[in-house]
């Protein structure tokens, strides 16, 4: 249905709160030059109206509890409700980050324990939990690499190598840290081209940022050789943990030769994605890099208990205020304790099984091509290139048509090295029946594409809105109610 903007629901005089009275009702005057004089055009609603509005908006949104949500590279697994229950403890919400350490032993213990789990899972020696998200973690990691080289006087290492299949955040993070980004092509197997890598490394190489398995869902089986090449050139190996769900509890980045790792608690460790955040992107490093991590780290000492350790001599500083997204950490640790050693291993086994189930059941379907090798890990990337050529139906159309069946689309047009990419990551928390229904829907869309392509091209038909015009949005941006109101007043908009 159509839900108005909250501003459009406003009626003069309505209130949605009762403010506590001030301690003393004395007049405190803001300096005249600073006093608010411009109008405060906030909406005026009662609490029931606010609740109805956002309840209705929520009903216009698809979440993990709505059905399969196989966004490739996003690991949209089920978010256990016990995580929310624990994160809802008043000992999370009502604790100030600057409290005396004696009054926050519980919080510090949680951070400390989480670090121990992450160390063993990744084969790293020390973790910072500060980064707020994966990209923030990447930035942390490459800054650590930068600091390491500079600290050794190795000032010419200005280049960061990034495969062409990498997430866009990898080159962006490297650039933010001041590195020049060198792209390494993939070979026909979809993995790093070793020859190209050999040619790219030099005394300017700061490191290589790699995801393993990569964004095609393919395990870089030459990983030990890759590590050898990079290390030999004096570079460090950075592990983008976006795809850790594929090897969780089975293989450790540390054992593959990586020196720095970032994880996404909101992907691998089941914390909810919140419509795009909050996430959490802890970064782990091998022992020789630990002195460069952001401050503070969490320490433990028999006598003192848990404490915040600001004594990190060569620290890169901070990548975010305070200690990171603590409420997310609580959820991740809850998950880890429920899963345990065997549970985590089973996660990756079934995540991989489910992705290969889709791979095998869908391959050979007309219009979808499976480039690169067949054996995938946690996700698979099909190409709708043949379908596009033969029927004009694009990956985007396939995605939109899936919505009509009550299913969420996969990630599309990524990785960039696959044309008309459909990147499907079912995760371990969907059932066989859901996998089957997904494959069936994709097969039906293939049939439609070859028999009645218009129905696919004009999809979705059953969603809250029809296909959304993103070109218009970019051409004439309307970013806020304020802009909309002004354009509307000028008669320049008809929405």
């Amino acid at each position: 249905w159509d839900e108005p903007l909250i501003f459009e629901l406003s009626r003069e005089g309505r209130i949605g709160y009762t403010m506590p009275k001030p301690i003393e009702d004395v007049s405190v005057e803001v300096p005249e030059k600073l006093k608010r004089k411009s109008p405060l055009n906030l909406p005026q609603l009662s609490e029931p109206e606010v609740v109805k509005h956002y309840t209705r908006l929520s009903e216009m949104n698809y979440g993990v509890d709505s059905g399969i949500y196989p966004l490739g590279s996003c690991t949209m697994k089920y978010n256990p409700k016990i995580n929310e229950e624990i994160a809802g403890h008043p000992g999370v919400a009502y604790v100030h980050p600057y409290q005396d350490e004696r009054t926050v032993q519980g919080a510090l213990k949680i951070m400390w324990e989480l670090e121990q789990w992450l160390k063993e899972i990744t084969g790293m020696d020390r973790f910072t939990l500060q980064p707020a998200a994966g990209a923030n973690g990447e930035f942390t990691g490459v800054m650590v690499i930068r600091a390491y080289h500079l600290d050794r006087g190795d000032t010419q290492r200005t280049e960061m190598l990034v495969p062409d299949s990498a997430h866009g955040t990898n080159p962006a993070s490297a650039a933010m840290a001041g590195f020049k980004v060198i792209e390494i092509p993939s070979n026909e197997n979809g993995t790093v081209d070793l020859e190209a890598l050999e040619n790219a490394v030099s005394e300017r190489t700061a490191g290589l940022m790699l995801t393993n398995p990569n964004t095609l869902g393919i395990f870089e089986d030459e990983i030990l050789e890759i590590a050898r090449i990079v290390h030999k050139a004096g570079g460090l190996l950075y592990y983008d943990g976006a795809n850790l769900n594929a090897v969780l509890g089975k293989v450790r980045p540390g054992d593959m030769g990586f020196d720095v790792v970032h994880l996404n608690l909101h992907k691998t460790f089941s914390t909810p994605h919140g419509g795009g955040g909050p996430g959490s992107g802890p970064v782990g490093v091998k022992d020789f890099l630990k002195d460069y991590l952001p401050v503070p780290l969490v320490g433990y000492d028999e006598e003192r208990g848990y404490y915040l350790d600001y004594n990190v001599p060569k620290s890169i500083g901070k990548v975010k205020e305070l200690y990171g997204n603590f409420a997310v950490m609580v959820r991740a640790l809850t998950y880890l304790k429920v899963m345990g050693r065997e549970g985590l291993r089973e996660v990756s086994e079934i995540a991989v099984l489910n992705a290969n189930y889709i791979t095998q059941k869908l391959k050979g379907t007309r219009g979808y091509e499976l480039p690169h090798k067949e054996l995938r890990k946690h996700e698979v990337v099909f190409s709708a290139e043949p379908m596009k050529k033969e029927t004009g139906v694009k990956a985007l159309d396939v995605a939109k048509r899936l919505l009509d069946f009550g299913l969420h689309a996969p990630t599309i047009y990524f990785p960039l090295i696959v044309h008309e990419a459909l990147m499907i990551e079912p995760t371990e928390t969907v059932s066989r029946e859901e996998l089957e229904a997904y494959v069936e829907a994709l097969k039906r869309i293939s049939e439609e594409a070859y028999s009645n392509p218009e129905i696919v091209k004009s999809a979705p038909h059953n969603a809250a809105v029809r296909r959304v015009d993103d070109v218009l949005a970019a051409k004439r941006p309307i970013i806020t109610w304020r802009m909309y109101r002004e354009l509307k007043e000028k008669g320049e908009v008809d929405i």
Partner: protein
Amino acid sequence: MGRHYLPNAAHKEELAKEIGFASVEDLFSDVPKGMVKEFNLPEGKSEYEVFLELNEVLSKNRTVLEMPSFLGAGTYFHYVPAHVKYLIERSEFLTAYTPYQPEVSQGMLQALFEYQSLIAELVGLPIVNASMYDWGTAMAEAALMSARVTRRNKFVVPKALSPEKRKVLHTYTAGPGVEIEYVDWNENGQVDIEKLKEAVDGAAGVYVEIPNFFGMLEEELITIGEIAHDAGALFVVGVDPTILGVVEAPGELGADVVVGEAAYFGNPMNFGGPRAGIFAVKNDRKLVRQMPGRIIGMTKDADGKRAFVMTLQTREQHIRRAKATSNICSNEALVAVAAAIHLATLGPKGLTELGEVILKNTAYLKKRLSEVAEVPFEGVNFKDVLVRFGKPYNEIHGALLERNIHGGYYIGEHFPELGESALFAATETTRKEWVDALIEALKEVA
């Protein structure tokens, strides 16, 4: 051991065979031999056991509900109305991801558009993104953006900046080599205008906060903006948005860019995170093209009906990769939605009342503190009040704790020139009896 999250666990071998693998192990045949190993981790536990254990651990935290606290310094105990939490916990919001498929994500998109719109009304600028990680990173990104836009590499900030933000700023600007210059405070605890004039030459941007780290309102804000503009620098204002019912929108005072902390609305303290950074700019094409972060825009669907979508993505990392305006991908969407719901609940009257109550409670705290210690800076404070004691604050702090009162944030180590000083803070949640108990205790121990 978590099998209850894994529908296919009991049939995994059967499924593997069905798709042509001899076993689940075979699905990992591409992993180099010997790399798969047993991990040294505890066994999984039942949900009940984990609940008991973590409940006990978290109960070891002393909350501000159990112990009056005067901590502020960038994190504040505000009250979040219950319906805000209730709404953002609806799984359609909570468990969704970035709205890549707008047709089934209109709820989150509209909520974020409303967040952007509400912040725009507060700060007085028309372009707002869908959130940064926090105020600190938003400020740091503003510094980087200023450098990109002006092609200069100096960013001027007040010396009265929180240690958190200072560290974040240094880390973010290290790679691109943007230099940070600090401007001292004057006898009122505000930016020293003369010193600013000296510092501003060649600056990409000038940053100032309202209130500043000492809780003071920068009375010369407009002048500071003019100085920045005269020098060809962008004027970046950091703002605690809870003040904006009583203080003029920074956009109206000359700000080109406004950053701040959105999580003060709608979100509890959570031991410091998550937060959500405000990032707003003027409607200037150069700024819009250079700003970081996701932006939601209004558009139409194929039927001409109003719809929302992520827009202006050509600035972003997934398209521009190394040339993106920022690496930010996941932001703090749900935190921003919580802030929006709280703001929509407050409305204009509520925001103004909130600001007034905080001003009054802070004034009461300041007045009472001045009975027992030195309060170096005169003027109006918002939340934080800087207090200087005659003996080591550490001792006072310990003695207060013994009386089940958590004192302020010690700043002596970050600002040695201020001696044994601490920031004590009040908000709308502060109770008279707490302040009175504090003062009684300080009379004994300070």
